[in-house]
C-alpha cells in the first residue's frame, strides 16, 4: 500500500493547487455562481490542457498511466480547492466504463466531451437491483427506452453512458452499456442544480438511438467496479475538503477576537480543532486504503475496504464540517464564507456514492459471501 504520495502525485497536487488559486479562487467562484455559471468551460479546458483528465488511464490509450492513485491525488486537490466541475463523474466514473479504444474516451480526455453516467432509476436511491430501461436492436444499432434518475453531472453532459437490459430477460448478465447523445431524438432531459453547486438530470428515453460500448455479459461487474472507484474518489475529495476546513479554522481561531483575546487561546476551542485534525487524519488513512483497492480485481476485498472507507470518511466529514462551522460562529453560517460551501459539499458527499447505511449493508453482504465459500 502506498502510504505517502509519489513524486508524480505531489506534482499533480501542486499543479491543481496552482490552477485552483488562479482560476477557482473563492471570490471568483462566488462571482460566477452569482451569475448562475455552474460550469466553467475555461477551467475545464485548463484541466484538459494540463493532462489532468488523462491521469488514471494507461499510456496506450493516451493517458499518463498513473492509475487510480494519480486521479485520487488530483481529486483531493480539487476538493481542497472547492472545484465544482465534474471531474469524478467524467474521469473516474465514466472513464472506467468506456472501452480503451473508444473515441469518446479520447474526447473526454481532451475536454471536448462531457459525460455523465445514467444508471439509477426512479424510486431507487441506491444502485438498482433491477433495471427497467430496455435496449432493443434497430437497423443502425440500438434504441433505448426508460427513465433514469440521479444522473449526477447530467446537467452539463453532452453524452450519457446509459445502462439498459438488452433482452427481455431478467438475468443479471443481460445488462449492457450504451452511449446516448443528449441531443438525439427521443432524449428528454430535465436538469437541476444541487445544494453543493453541482447538478444533475433526470432523463426519459423514448426509443433513443444508442451505441453499445460493452459486451452484454460484463456490464454489471464493470459498473460495480466503476462505482467503487467513484466512491474511493469522493473519499479523496472529502479529505481535500476537510484539509481546507482544518486550515481555515486554525487560521480563523488565531485571528478572531472575542472577550479581548483570540478565540484560539480558549482550551475548548483548541481541543475542538485538534479533534478536527484527528478526524482528518483518520479519513486520510481510509482514503489511502480505498485508493489502494480501487484498482484491485479482488472484488470482495475491494468492496469491503471501499465500503469501510466511505463509512469512516462520512463520519469524519460530518464532524469536521459541523465543527468548522461552529468555530467560525456567525460568519460560518453565511454564504460569504467558504466554510459553508465546504459544509454543503461534505454533506452532499455523505449522501453520494452510497450513504453509510448502504455501505454497512454491503459490508454485511460481503462478509456473508466471504464466509460461504
Amino acid at each position, binding site marked *: 500500500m502506498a502510504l505517502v504520495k509519489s513524486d508524480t502525485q505531489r506534482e499533480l497536487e501542486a499543479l491543481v493547487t496552482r490552477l485552483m488559486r488562479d482560476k477557482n479562487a473563492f471570490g471568483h467562484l462566488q462571482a460566477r455562481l452569482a451569475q448562475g455559471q455552474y460550469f466553467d468551460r475555461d477551467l475545464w479546458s485548463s484541466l484538459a490542457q494540463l493532462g489532468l483528465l488523462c491521469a488514471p488511464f494507461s499510456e496506450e490509450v493516451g493517458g499518463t498511466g498513473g492509475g487510480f492513485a494519480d486521479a485520487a491525488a488530483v481529486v483531493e486537490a480539487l476538493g481542497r480547492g472547492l472545484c465544482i466541475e465534474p471531474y469524478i463523474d467524467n474521469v473516474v466514473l465514466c472513464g472506467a466504463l468506456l472501452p480503451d479504444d473508444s473515441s469518446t474516451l479520447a474526447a473526454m480526455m481532451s475536454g471536448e466531451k462531457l459525460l455523465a453516467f445514467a444508471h439509477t432509476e426512479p424510486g431507487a436511491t441506491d444502485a438498482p437491483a433491477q433495471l427497467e430501461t430496455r435496449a432493443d436492436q434497430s437497423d443502425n444499432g440500438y434504441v433505448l427506452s426508460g427513465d433514469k434518475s440521479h444522473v449526477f453531472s447530467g446537467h452539463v453532459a453532452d453524452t450519457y453512458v446509459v445502462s439498459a437490459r438488452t433482452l427481455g430477460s431478467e438475468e443479471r448478465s443481460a445488462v449492457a452499456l450504451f452511449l446516448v447523445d443528449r441531443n438525439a431524438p427521443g432524449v428528454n432531459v430535465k436538469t437541476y442544480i444541487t445544494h453543493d453547486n453541482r447538478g444533475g438530470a433526470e432523463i426519459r428515453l423514448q426509443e433513443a438511438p444508442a451505441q453499445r460500448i460493452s459486451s452484454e455479459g460484463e456490464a454489471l461487474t464493470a459498473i460495480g467496479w466503476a462505482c467503487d472507484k467513484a466512491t474511493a474518489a469522493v473519499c479523496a475529495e472529502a479529505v481535500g475538503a476537510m484539509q481546507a476546513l482544518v486550515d481555515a479554522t486554525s487560521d480563523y481561531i488565531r485571528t478572531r477576537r472575542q472577550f479581548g483575546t483570540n478565540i484560539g487561546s480558549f482550551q475548548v476551542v483548541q481541543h475542538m480543532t485538534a479533534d478536527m485534525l484527528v478526524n482528518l487524519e483518520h479519513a486520510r488513512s481510509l482514503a489511502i486504503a480505498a485508493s489502494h483497492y480501487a484498482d484491485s480485481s479482488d472484488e470482495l476485498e475491494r468492496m469491503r475496504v471501499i465500503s469501510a472507507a466511505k463509512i469512516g470518511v462520512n463520519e469524519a466529514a460530518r464532524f469536521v464540517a459541523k465543527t468548522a462551522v*461552529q468555530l467560525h*460562529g*456567525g460568519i460560518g*453560517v453565511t454564504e460569504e464564507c467558504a466554510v459553508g460551501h465546504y459544509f*454543503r459539499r461534505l454533506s452532499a458527499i455523505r449522501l453520494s456514492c452510497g*450513504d453509510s447505511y448502504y455501505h454497512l449493508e454491503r459490508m454485511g453482504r460481503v462478509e456473508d459471501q466471504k464466509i460461504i465459500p
Partner: protein
Amino acid sequence: GFPVEYGGTGWDIVQQSIYFSVLAEEGAPMNNMWAQKMIGPVLIAYGTDQQKQLIAPMLSVEDFWCQGFSEPGAGSDLASLKTRAEDRGDHWLVNGQKLWTTNAHHANKIFLLVRTDTSVKPQKGISMLLADMDTPGIEVRPVITIDRRHEVNEVFLTDVVVPKENIVGEPGQGWDIAKFLLGNERVGIAEVGLQKLLLRRLKALVKSRPGGHRYSSEVRRLEADVLGVEVSGLRLLKAESVSASEPSLLKLKSSEIIQRCFELALEIAGVDALPYDEASQLHTEGCWLDASVGNLFSDYCESRAYTIFGGTSEIQHNIIVKSALGL
C-alpha cells in the same frame, strides 16, 4: 401574556408557553412571534406608559419588530459593542453597524443596544433605544446564509436621529435590560413545539422513504430525548427562582436534539435532498413540509445556527461553569 390593559391576554407563563409550543408544533408562521417574547416583556418592565402603547400594535403585527444587538466584532461578546449614540440634547445621534438582524428587511421598528457612555466600564455604558426603520440613515443589506436564504441582515446606522424619549429605562441600563430580555428566553427555549413537529415529519419520512425503517430506532431515541426536554421546559417555567445556568442547560440539550433531527432527516432523504429548488427556498419556517424534501437540505444547513446564535454552545457551557459549578 401581556396585561389585558395593553391589549394582551393576561396569560401566565405556562399558558403562554403552551400557546407558542402549539403554534410551532402545527408549523404556523412564527416570523414575529419572538418579539412578543423579547421586546414585549421589556416594555412592560422598563417602558414608559407611552412605550407600553406599543404592545397592542405589536400583537396585531401592525408593527413588525427586529432586534439590533449583535455587531460584526461583538458576537458572543456583547459588552464590546461599538454602535454609539451621542446625546444631542433633544435627540440621540446613532452611528454604527448591526449584524445578524433577523427580518430587518420586513420590520418597521427596531430596538437597539447602543453605547451612550464610553467613560465607564463597557457593560455600564450601554443603553437601549427604540427606532423606526424608516428613519433616515438606516440602511438594510441582506446577508445570505448557509441555507442560501435571506433572513438576516446587516443594518447600517449613519447619523440616525432618535427622539430622546425613545430610550428604554435609564441611560446605562441597557446591559441589565438585555440580561432581563435574554432571561425571558426561558419561555420556549426548550423549543418543544418545533421538536414535536420534527418528530412527526421524521416519522412520515421513515414511512415514505425506501429503507426508511432502518432509521426508526434513531427517531425513537430522539422522541425519548424530546420527552426529557419537554419536562425540563416545564420545570424551568414552574421554578420559583431560576439560576443563570438552567436556561443554558436546557438550550444545550434542545439545540443538540434539533440538529440531530435535521441530520437524521437528511440521511433518510438521501440523494433526493440534493436538488436545489429556488421556489421552496421561500419557505423559511425552519421545517420542511410533509411529503416533500424540497427545502430539507436548506433547513438542515440552517439548523447549524442553533448552537451559534443566542449565545454559542461554548458560551452556554461557560455560563453553567460559572453559575452552577462556581468555577
